[in-house]
C-alpha cells in the first residue's frame, strides 16, 4: 500500500516537473528547422547587404509657440521645459555627428531659449546656456546676440536673472571690448536688480573708471557710501580707498585702461 502510494506520488511529481519543460530538438520537424535557418540567413544576409546608415546634420527647426507647448506638456510645463532644454543642449551632438555651436542658427537657438523660459520662467538653465554655452563661441556677432537675449530676459525678472547680465557685462568689457555695452548692462543691474548683491550693483562704477570717467565714478561711489547700503567695514574701507584714488585722478586724469 505504502509502496504503491510512493510510486503514485513520484509519478505525479515527475509529471509536474516535466510540465513546462522542453522537448528534445529531434521533436522539431525538419521543415520547421530548415525554415528557421533559411529565414535567419535571409534576414542577416539582406540586412548585411543594406548600405550603412550615414550621419546627416539636421537644421534646428523653429520652436512651437509657448501656448502650444503648454498644451503638449499635459500639465507638466517644468518637466517638459527641462526635456526641451536637454533636447536643445544635445542638438549639437546628433547621432553620429557633432556640430560646432558656431554653426548653429543663433536666431533659432534664441527662439528656443526664450520659448523654454516662457514655459518655465523660474528656471535659470536657458540663461546659463545663453551666457555660458552659446555665448562662448569666438564670434562677436553671436556673442552679442546671446547677450541681447540675456538683457531682454533680465528686464522681465531682474532680481532673479541679474547674474547672467553681470556675466554678459564682463564679457562685453573683456571679450567684446565694448565698455559702453558693459556700462549699459551694469547700469541696468544697478537700476533694476534691487536684490542683487552690492558688488554687482557697484559694477558700473568700475566700468566707468575703466572708461576714464573718473568724476562720474567718484560721484556714484560717493553716493553709494553715503546711502549706507554697504555695511561691511572691510568693504567700506576698500571703497573709501577707491574713492580717494578716483578723487586724486580727477585732478590728474587716469589713463583709460581701454
Amino acid at each position, binding site marked *: 500500500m505504502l509502496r504503491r502510494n510512493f510510486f503514485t506520488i513520484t509519478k505525479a511529481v515527475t509529471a509536474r516537473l*516535466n*510540465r*513546462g*519543460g*522542453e*522537448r*528534445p*530538438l529531434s*521533436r*522539431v*520537424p525538419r*521543415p*520547421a*528547422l530548415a*525554415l*528557421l535557418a*533559411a*529565414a*535567419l540567413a*535571409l*534576414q*542577416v544576409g*539582406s*540586412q*548585411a547587404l543594406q548600405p*550603412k*546608415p550615414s*550621419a546627416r546634420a539636421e537644421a534646428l527647426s523653429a520652436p512651437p*509657440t509657448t501656448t*502650444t507647448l503648454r*498644451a503638449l506638456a499635459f500639465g507638466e510645463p517644468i518637466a517638459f521645459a527641462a526635456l526641451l532644454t536637454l533636447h536643445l543642449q544635445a542638438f549639437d*551632438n546628433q*547621432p*553620429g*555627428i*557633432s556640430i560646432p555651436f558656431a554653426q548653429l542658427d543663433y536666431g533659432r537657438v534664441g527662439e528656443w531659449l526664450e520659448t523654454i523660459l516662457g514655459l518655465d520662467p523660474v528656471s535659470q538653465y536657458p540663461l546659463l546656456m545663453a551666457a555660458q554655452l552659446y555665448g562662448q563661441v569666438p564670434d562677436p556677432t553671436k556673442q552679442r546676440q546671446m547677450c541681447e537675449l540675456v538683457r531682454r530676459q533680465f528686464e522681465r525678472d531682474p532680481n532673479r536673472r541679474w547674474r547672467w547680465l553681470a556675466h554678459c557685462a564682463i564679457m562685453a568689457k573683456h571679450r567684446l571690448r565694448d565698455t559702453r555695452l558693459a556700462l549699459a548692462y551694469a547700469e541696468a543691474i544697478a537700476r533694476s536688480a534691487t536684490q542683487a548683491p552690492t558688488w554687482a550693483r557697484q559694477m558700473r562704477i568700475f566700468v566707468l573708471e575703466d572708461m576714464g570717467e573718473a568724476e562720474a565714478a567718484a560721484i556714484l561711489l560717493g553716493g553709494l557710501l553715503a546711502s549706507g547700503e554697504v555695511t561691511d567695514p572691510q568693504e567700506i574701507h576698500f571703497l573709501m580707498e577707491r574713492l580717494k584714488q578716483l578723487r586724486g585722478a580727477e585732478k590728474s586724469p587716469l589713463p583709460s585702461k581701454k
Partner: protein
Amino acid sequence: MARYALLEALRTRFPVLVLVAVAVLLLASFFVESIAVTEGARFQAAFYAAGMRLAGVFVAGLYVLVSIAREFNDKGFDILLALDLPRAHYVLGKLAGFLALAVLIAAVASLPLVWFAPLEAVVQWAVSLALELAIVVALALFCMLTFSQLVPAASFVLAFYLLARSITAIRLMGAHPLAGADSLSHQVISGTMEALGLVTPAFDTWTQTAWLVDQPAAWASLLQIGWQSIVYVLLLTAAAMFDLYRKNF
C-alpha cells in the same frame, strides 16, 4: 484556424476598439488643425498619421498577446493539441488570421487620410503600416508562445518595437562616437549594436508621415520594405514553430 481568429476578433468587439481609436485621433487631429496658426492641414495629417501608427501597433500587438493568453488559460490550446493537428498548422492558422487583422487595421486607419493627403501617398502609408503591423503581430505571437506569460511577452514586444524605431540612430551613435572610439568597451558595444542591426528591422524608415505631408516615397523603397517584412515574418513564424514544437504542455 484563421477564420476563427478573425471571428474571435469580431466577437470581442475588436473592430469597435479600432474604430474608436480612429474616431478619437481624428477628432484630436481636428483640434490640432484648429489651434495651428499656419499649415493646419499638414499638422492635422501628421498628428493623425503618427498617432494612428502607434495606436495600431498597440492594439494589434496587445490583441494577439491577450488572444493567445486566453487560449492558454481557457485550456482551448490543450484541446487543440489533443486533436490530430500539427503544431505548425496552429501557428500558421493563427498567424494568417492575425495578418488579415493587421491588413484590416491598416485599411481602416488610412481611410481618413484620403481627405488629407494625395492618394498615392496614402496607399504607400497604408501598405507600409500593414507590413509593420504584420511584423508586430508575428512578434506578439512568437513572444506569447515562447514566454507563455502576458507580462514578459508584452514587455518584450514593447522593448523590441522601441529598439526597432531607434536602431538606426543607435547604430549611427555607435559607429561615429564623439570620444573614446578606440576603447575596448566602445568596440564591444558598437559590435553588439551592429549585430542587433542585423536581426532588427529598422522601423524608422517605415510608414513615414513625411510621405503624406511632404512627398510620396519611391516605390522601390516600398518594395524593399515589403521584402524585409516577408523575411522577418518568415523568421518569426519559424522561431514560433520551433519554440512550440519544443514546448512540453
